[in-house]
């Protein structure tokens, strides 16, 4: 038999470029070395062995591969490090392997309990990470690459994979911009914002292939690992698409061993987390009369008030929601083939009535060695996503007149004109009546062949293909029980979308060690094409409502529309990694990208980068500190990446439609020139510098990393304002520059590690600050100037609050007549005279507060006591000021209600809110009411229990785990709106969720 630790390295080097999944790596490797003859051993008496695997610090090791040598019997240790395995005979040999630890083999003999101590493999310390087009040892990585611990997904089951990462990865800024059952309105940014107008979202790579679908359609259960490439060097392999960073997701693979069946299910209820304190019926009535007198009231309002029937529209539009999941997966494998098959059903009924989302995912991942030099793999998923049903119109429900009438006399049918005197108002509940179907079906399949070329040692080739097909259909009918359906005798819409994307990547890897020199070269040539087509028909005016949206042929007015978009990419990439003596690391990368939407004159761009790393702890002079300092790596990288922020055809001059009528009033199609083309248009470029330090103290009980970055983005795609004498007011050009800098800290610590009790803490802290350098506008001296119309200010962050500053309220004893606002009355708002020129002019508008957080913090604490685990996660965003749009003064002459603020009165003076009077004089400059939108949020609490091993063994079950998870339990904030994180304050509220789940493994 071959000695493991000798061959380990050799095999690893061959396999690394090909195998994506880290956890199965050791397993595969080990079993592939076992002589086939062992397979033929006769079945002897079955024997059960249990035990616990620990490390030298007496920490339990979960996830250790335990395999009976020469068989396909195998499993991994549980979260407590325990295992229980049946072996064929007392002659069986158990092999324990774990990444970063030396593999041990123990002959069973007559032991029934085998506790194993695994020693850290010093030569191979640390984990292996996916770096794109290959994997690398973490210790060899020279760029800023963060790994997201996917155990969090199990611990706090999210609906959306991205949701689970919020606050957990330093430098990854995730904001839930609006709430819905599907929960997919999430803004994702790596290291904040570089671009002004273009997308700042990172590139997502799923199983090696760019993922363009919705993040809510990825099933989190299927994800095995997530890596975040943050700096220019690590992301440079994706060139023109990498300026916003890259998130690499890899799905699960089977482990060697008998088929393992896992059942993962939960059920939860959802409630409204918080509602703003709106006026409500009686207060609204009082305020309205106080402001305008009773003469402004309409008959409907008087009747509602007299009968005391006030309507809480938000209450009528919401319910207690629910969410549940059923997941079954089967995984396993032998030395030649491994498989992972998973089926999941999710159903969410949101807190908004009719806001539903169902998701069905089926995934099949198989990898098989055809010969010893050729293997084939597939990662294929099919999904069905049902988004049918329209929730009520919340932006209207929040502010709708509470004296308007929701239901007709029968108490059930919705009113078509809830406020008959003001026919412009729709019933906010009306969308619930729409007949709506909205379904998508998607297949994403990634297939590859690996060839180990025998001519040159260390050389291999992989052809990696991806194919995505997606079809969506959306159908809607507004019948005569809705306002527009009533007025127009039915309104229908049917839309079909068809999306196909293919990619072919040729990847060549060469990896060898020459003494102390280690090199790893990667070359890529790839082509990708995306085609998107849509056809839709809107129609109105039907004989009846019976055939809903199946009757456009009977409509009075039919408006079809179609679109077609095709984009193509060609890319070449070369990456060289060089390591000397495991101490000095160098990475050079260059990618050349061609993209069809770039201008005729600039189809290709080249994006180079360099990174250096130094494993300081390996140096001899550091051994003096090794008692407390076991890891110290310094990294530095510099490079440029692109943001291909332009869509198809945007460099071409375009015509817009403007139709008219001709003979007999029939349609006459018309076009006019609307967009000027610029054939030189190209990508935005970000050059960035990153310096990082990875550290590990006290035998890595405390470990983490610090990164500092600085980036400069230029050639920003901005719509330059041009004189409309040219027929159009803007032309899109590569002008403008921003800079962005920040720092990130990620620390994990094992606070307590006793036999029965373990407490760990993970902290991630990040901060960034961006600044506009220029937006392509100069004054007569050539100095860069602000674009006030677009709220872009040189030297200020990209997003700002800009306007008049509301300083307070004029009081009766102020000398108003001699002030800079002589026309004001007591109780009117006092605007700050920012430039102190004794008058309020447009120059007194200024930047107020900040929309960029001063820091983002996430803290996860995990307590494990025997079989109990308790986790809680706190997320904080601090230093943000935002305008609260729910505070408006006599909005629309009290046709809407607002937040229940305490108005200034001569008797009850305050300095925050003005008197209740016509808006134009009280707040003549429409100054906004800004509030502190910082918050601390208790995002997740989980309490879980693992059933004891001895009990489960009797039932022949590997694992049963039950848990209770509560999300969004509480928020500490001064914000008076709906929620400081949401964009719109009159929208579906955030939810508080309580989940009960069970995980069972056979």
């Amino acid at each position: 038999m071959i000695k493991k630790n000798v061959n380990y390295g050799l095999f690893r080097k061959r396999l690394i470029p090909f195998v994506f999944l880290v956890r199965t790596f050791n397993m595969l490797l080990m079993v592939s070395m076992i002589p086939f003859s062992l397979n033929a051993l006769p079945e002897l008496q079955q024997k059960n062995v249990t035990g616990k695997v620990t490390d030298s610090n007496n920490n339990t090791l979960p996830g250790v591969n335990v395999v009976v040598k020469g068989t396909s019997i195998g499993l991994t240790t549980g979260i407590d490090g325990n295992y229980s395995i049946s072996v064929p005979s007392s002659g069986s040999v158990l092999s324990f392997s774990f990444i970063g630890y030396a593999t041990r083999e123990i002959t069973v003999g007559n032991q029934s309990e085998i506790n194993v101590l695994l020693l850290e493999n010093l030569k191979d310390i640390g984990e292996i990470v996916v770096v794109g087009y290959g994997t690398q040892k973490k210790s060899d990585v020279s760029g800023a690459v963060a790994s997201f611990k996917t155990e969090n997904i199990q611990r706090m089951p999210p609906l959306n994979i991205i949701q689970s990462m919020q606050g957990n990865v330093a430098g990854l800024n995730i904001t839930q911009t609006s709430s819905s059952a599907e929960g997919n309105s999430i803004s994702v940014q790596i290291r904040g914002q570089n671009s002004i107008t273009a997308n700042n979202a990172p590139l997502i790579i799923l199983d090696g292939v760019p993922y363009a679908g919705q993040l809510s359609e990825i099933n989190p259960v299927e994800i095995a690992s997530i890596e975040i490439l943050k700096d220019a060097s690590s992301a440079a392999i994706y060139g023109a698409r990498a300026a916003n960073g890259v998130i690499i997701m890899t799905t699960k693979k089977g482990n060697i061993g008998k088929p393992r069946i896992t059942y993962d299910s939960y059920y939860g209820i959802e409630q409204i987390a918080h509602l703003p304190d709106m006026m409500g019926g009686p207060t609204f009535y009082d305020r309205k009369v106080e402001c305008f007198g009773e003469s402004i009231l309409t008959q409907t309002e008087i009747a509602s008030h007299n009968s005391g029937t006030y309507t809480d529209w938000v209450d009528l539009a919401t319910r207690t929601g629910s969410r549940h999941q059923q997941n079954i997966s089967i995984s396993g494998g032998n030395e030649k083939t491994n498989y992972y098959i998973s089926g999941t059903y999710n159903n969410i009924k949101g807190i908004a009535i009719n806001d539903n989302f169902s998701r069905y995912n089926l995934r099949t991942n198989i990898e098989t060695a055809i010969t010893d030099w050729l293997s084939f793999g597939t990662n294929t998923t099919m999904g069905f996503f049902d988004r049918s049903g329209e929730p009520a119109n919340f932006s209207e429900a929040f502010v709708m007149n509470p004296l308007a009438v929701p239901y007709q006399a029968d108490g059930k049918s919705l009113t078509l004109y809830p406020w008959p005197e003001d026919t412009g108002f729709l019933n906010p509940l009306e969308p619930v009546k729409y007949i709506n179907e909205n379904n998508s079906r998607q297949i994403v399949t990634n297939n590859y062949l690996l060839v180990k070329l025998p001519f040159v040692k260390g050389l291999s080739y992989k052809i990696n293909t991806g194919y995505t097909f997606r079809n969506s259909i959306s159908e809607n009918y507004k019948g005569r029980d809705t306002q527009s359906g009533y007025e127009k005798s039915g309104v229908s819409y049917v839309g079909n979308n068809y999306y196909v994307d293919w990619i072919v990547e040729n990847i060549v890897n060469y990896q060898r060690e020459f003494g102390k020199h280690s090199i790893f070269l990667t070359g890529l040539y790839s082509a990708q094409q995306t085609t998107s087509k849509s056809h839709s028909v809107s129609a109105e005016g039907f004989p009846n409502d019976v055939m809903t949206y199946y009757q456009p042929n009977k409509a009075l007015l039919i408006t079809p529309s179609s679109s077609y978009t095709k984009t193509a990419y060609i890319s070449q990439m070369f990456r060289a990694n060089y390591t000397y003596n495991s101490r000095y690391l160098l990475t050079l990368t260059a990618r050349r990208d061609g993209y069809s939407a770039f201008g005729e004159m600039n189809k290709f761009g080249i994006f180079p980068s360099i990174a250096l790393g130094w494993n300081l702890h390996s140096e001899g002079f550091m051994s003096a500190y090794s008692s407390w300092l076991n890891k110290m790596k310094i990294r530095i990288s510099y490079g440029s990446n692109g943001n291909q922020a332009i869509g198809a055809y945007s460099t071409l001059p375009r015509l817009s439609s403007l139709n008219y009528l001709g003979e007999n009033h029939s349609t006459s199609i018309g076009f006019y020139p609307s967009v000027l083309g610029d054939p030189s248009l190209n990508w935005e470029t970000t050059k960035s510098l990153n310096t990082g330090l990875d550290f590990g103290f006290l035998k890595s009980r405390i470990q983490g990393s610090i990164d500092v970055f600085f980036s400069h983005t230029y050639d920003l795609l901005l719509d330059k304002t041009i004189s409309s004498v040219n027929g159009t007011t803007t032309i899109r050009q590569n002008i403008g520059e921003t800079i962005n800098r920040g720092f990130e800290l990620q620390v994990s610590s094992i606070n307590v590690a006793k036999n029965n009790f373990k407490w760990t803490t993970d902290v991630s802290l990040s901060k960034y600050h961006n600044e506009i350098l220029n937006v392509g506008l100069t004054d007569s001296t050539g100095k860069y100037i602000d674009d006030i119309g677009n709220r872009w200010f040189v030297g200020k962050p990209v997003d700002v609050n800009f306007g008049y500053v509301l300083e307070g309220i004029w009081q009766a004893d102020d000398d108003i007549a001699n002030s800079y606002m002589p026309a004001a009355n007591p109780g009117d708002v006092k605007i700050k005279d920012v430039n102190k020129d004794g008058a309020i002019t447009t120059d007194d508008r200024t930047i107020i507060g900040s929309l960029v957080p001063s820091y983002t913090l996430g803290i996860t604490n995990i307590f494990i006591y025997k079989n109990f685990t308790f986790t809680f996660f706190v997320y904080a965003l601090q230093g943000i000021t935002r305008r609260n749009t729910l505070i408006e003064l006599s909005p629309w002459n009290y046709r809407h209600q607002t937040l229940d603020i305490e108005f200034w009165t001569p008797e009850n003076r305050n300095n925050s809110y003005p008197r209740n009077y016509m808006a134009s004089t009280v707040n003549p400059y429409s100054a906004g009411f800004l509030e502190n939108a910082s918050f601390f949020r208790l995002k997740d609490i989980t309490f879980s229990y693992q059933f004891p091993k001895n009990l489960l063994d009797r039932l022949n079950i590997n694992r049963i785990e039950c848990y209770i998870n509560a999300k969004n339990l509480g928020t500490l904030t001064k914000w008076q709106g709906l929620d400081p994180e949401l964009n719109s304050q009159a929208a579906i509220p955030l939810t508080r969720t309580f989940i009960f789940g069970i995980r069972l493994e056979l």
Partner: protein
Amino acid sequence: MKKSIYILFILGILTVFSACNEKDFLEEHPKDDIYADNLFVDYDGFKNVLNSLKAMVAQERTELAGSFELSLPMKIGVDNGWANYTYNSLDGFNTYGVALNPEYPPLGTIFNWLYRAVNTSNMIISRAENPKIKWKGQTSEENEYNKNIILAQAKLIRAWAYRHLTYCFGAVPLSLKEVTGETYRNDWERTPVSEVQLQMEEDLLFAEQYLPENYSDVTIPPKAVAQHYLAELYLAMNDPVRAEEKAQTVANNPNFSLCTVRYGKKATQPGVPFMDQFYDGNVLPSEGNHEVLWVLLNEPDVVGAINNVMRRTWINRYYSFATVSAEYGGRGIGRAAFTRWAHNLYEATDDRFSQYAIAKSYKKTTDGSTVLTRVKAEVKNDTYWPSTKKWDWTHPEITRVSEDPQFGDQAYIRLAETYLLLAEAQLKNGHPELAVTWINKIRKRSNATAITATSVTLNYILDERSRELLTEEHRRYTLARTGTLITRTKLYNPISAGIQNFHALWPIPQTIIDANTGKPLEQNEGYN
């Protein structure tokens, strides 16, 4: 065996690497959009672009710049029009206060709208000279005719746009060529009004030459429109002789005459001849209207329909006490009203002051009692101020009676206005005795007392224009052309009494000045 598979692989790789021609692969072939180069190839393509130009003319009565008729700013802040309701977007035009400044948003919208029309016309005019265009005629004469009928319309509308531009902003950059991504300019200069007028004259003369004599094809305006505008242009250029000549040609054209007897859809219902020409179904020449020179086509529930808001703009908010109905003309929000002076300008017998022309009363929803409209001092938010009924229109479907836009045909230019231009020219040429005949034709039709030649003065003609063309004409332009804008506005419109001499022109929008980085663009006097 093994070896051959290797070779196969290597060949495969080579194929993938070489088979892909990068240039072809990355070339864009949009299929869902049309581009100038593949549109301007034949007669049909030119007609398509012309359709959008005509729609731009019709946009004059849509809500492009706020919830009011886009040309409302040319009709208020003058002697006979004011904005009744508190609506900030109209304050500058209504009161000539600080709101009328270079950053006033509607100004930019109006400026952009007109230059869009200029550039669209320029594109047609520039590209029509391409010899490869297929004009789809059977003979070379037909080809020539097709080309010229396209050019005539494009030039008519270009002159229409420059008419608006010179009256609103004075000297404006004169752009006559197609602009592309490579040729766009940031160094425009303001061309003196007199030079722009020469270009308008050239364009209108071309249009006069090639447009049809009559209005039998309602999609092509007759040459009378070009002549009408020429008459007005010559008056502005202080050339009353040629103005009279052009207006006289229109007046002599046998295809056009005033509608003096009841006709059409409501002929059997009580009414007056003057109002018949405003009812949908009576507007087109084919429907019996021989007075209309230029029509804005419209039709409900058709692609290409224009969201016209004349009624929404001009009908008062009677909905606050009476139920919205077709009889009352539909729902309005009273953005604007005629002034008390304009209301009091009529004699009692004048059909243009009858209950068919001006809303006199409503039935109250609550108790059915009659509410009379009335004028008094102009104070904003007056729901009892009477409205014109020229723009009454509701959707035939009764459930849609409250809809905002209207979709009926409307007259854009009527012969009556040409008569009044003719009278003005004749007066200037020292022939009040000729002028009075045209004025009396108009007055007689509406049952107003005939006047004598001695009564004919410029002021009288301006008063008559108000009586006849109330809410139709660009009153601001008429008063500016005759040099009476300031005096008459101060005299007759208390809301707009703050008007000063420099208000005869609006400021050039600041965005236009700011964007002209290559050369300073002068602001109009009084707005710096």
